């Protein structure tokens, strides 16, 4: 089973990328990706929360009554999100000032509860951790990528470093631009998939389960 951990992680990054393949949690993906920095911060927060939630749900999977599993998962997610928020407030003030509002919203991200329900509640701790980590990395990568494209075209900079003198196309940092970029990147992902992998999902080896 050892090799399958790599498979599980890669699965989240490419073949079941939360944003480009599963099309989950698109709302935050549009809202926060106005720059590389914002996308990165949000991605890291989600990565941590997701890995911890998957581990916890997996440990408790036999103790939680199926009738109340959804409220139980929400409580677990809310606890980790609150911890993340309190930590940011104390140790990362500037990031908190920019992201504070969105950090609280992680509680309702579809991708997190869907992984808890579809994967962690049915699998052992380590595979669940790998799944959460992979999905988190996939989400992080997607947010950074979308953020980079929007920041470059919208503000003419990458991660705060100016490349062009003025802002080329301001609409790209507005929500409209978010939809454009995500749609086009999703298309690109699908095209690569069809062209090089015969339409079968699976970049680094994955496939549906």
């Amino acid at each position, binding site marked *: 089973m050892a090799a399958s951990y790599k498979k599980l992680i890669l699965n989240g990054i490419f073949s079941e990328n939360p944003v480009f393949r599963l099309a989950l949690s698109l709302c935050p993906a549009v809202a926060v990706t106005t720059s590389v920095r914002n996308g990165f911060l949000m991605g890291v927060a989600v990565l941590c929360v997701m890995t911890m939630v998957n581990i916890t749900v997996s440990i408790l999977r036999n103790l939680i*009554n199926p009738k109340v599993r959804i409220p139980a998962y929400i409580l677990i997610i809310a606890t980790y999100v609150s911890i993340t928020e309190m930590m940011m407030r104390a140790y990362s003030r500037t990031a908190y000032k920019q992201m504070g509002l969105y950090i609280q919203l992680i509680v309702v991200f579809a991708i997190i509860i869907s992984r808890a329900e579809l994967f962690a509640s049915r699998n052992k701790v380590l595979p669940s951790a790998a799944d959460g980590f992979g999905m988190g990395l996939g989400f992080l990568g997607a947010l950074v990528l979308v953020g980079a494209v929007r920041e470059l075209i919208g503000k003419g900079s990458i991660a705060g470093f100016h490349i062009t003198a003025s802002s080329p196309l301001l609409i790209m940092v507005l929500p409209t631009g978010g939809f454009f970029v995500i749609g086009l990147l999703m298309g690109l992902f699908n095209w690569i998939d069809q062209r090089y992998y015969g339409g079968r999902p699976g970049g680094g080896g994955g496939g549906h389960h």
Partner: protein
Amino acid sequence: MNSKDIIKITLNLVAICAVAGVILSVVWAVTNPVRLEKKAEELRAAQKALVPQAQNITEALKFVSAGGKEGVIYKATADGKTVGYIIKAYAKGYSSFIEMLVAVDIDYRIIGIQILSEQETPGLGAEMEKKWFKDQFRGKTEDHLIVMKGETKTDIQAISGATISSRAVTNGVKAAVDALRAERAKDRAL
């Protein structure tokens, strides 16, 4: 569902809530002092930036600001003379209370303002922390603390898309100056 099930389900949720509560209390107890200390540090830095010539900035008195929140008047002195006042005040914005610092000289002319915290519409509200908006207040007296849509040299130009927030900040600055005036009328030593 029988009664045994109901008890089981209840216990399940109670247990999760209890554990979550304990964990959150511990994290709060550890992080809150750090947060408060960092906040105080930010306040000192912001005050220093507003009135750089001040040698001493001391808390003079507290007053009630918008929403019943606690406003503070700080006195800035240099060589034993008062060079200005810094007022920490709140203003009711579009979706939050905006916390800000207003620095004025002894003639109630605005030296500058600083936004400490806000939770206004993301992307638009943040514009109020930009230099161009804050710099508009410099040198203004109360008569010119009026928000205008469109360009203005004499008054305060609203942030497009965030008129309510712009108005809130401006009215907040005005209220802060009024509070200082009222307190000074009561206490000449201030």
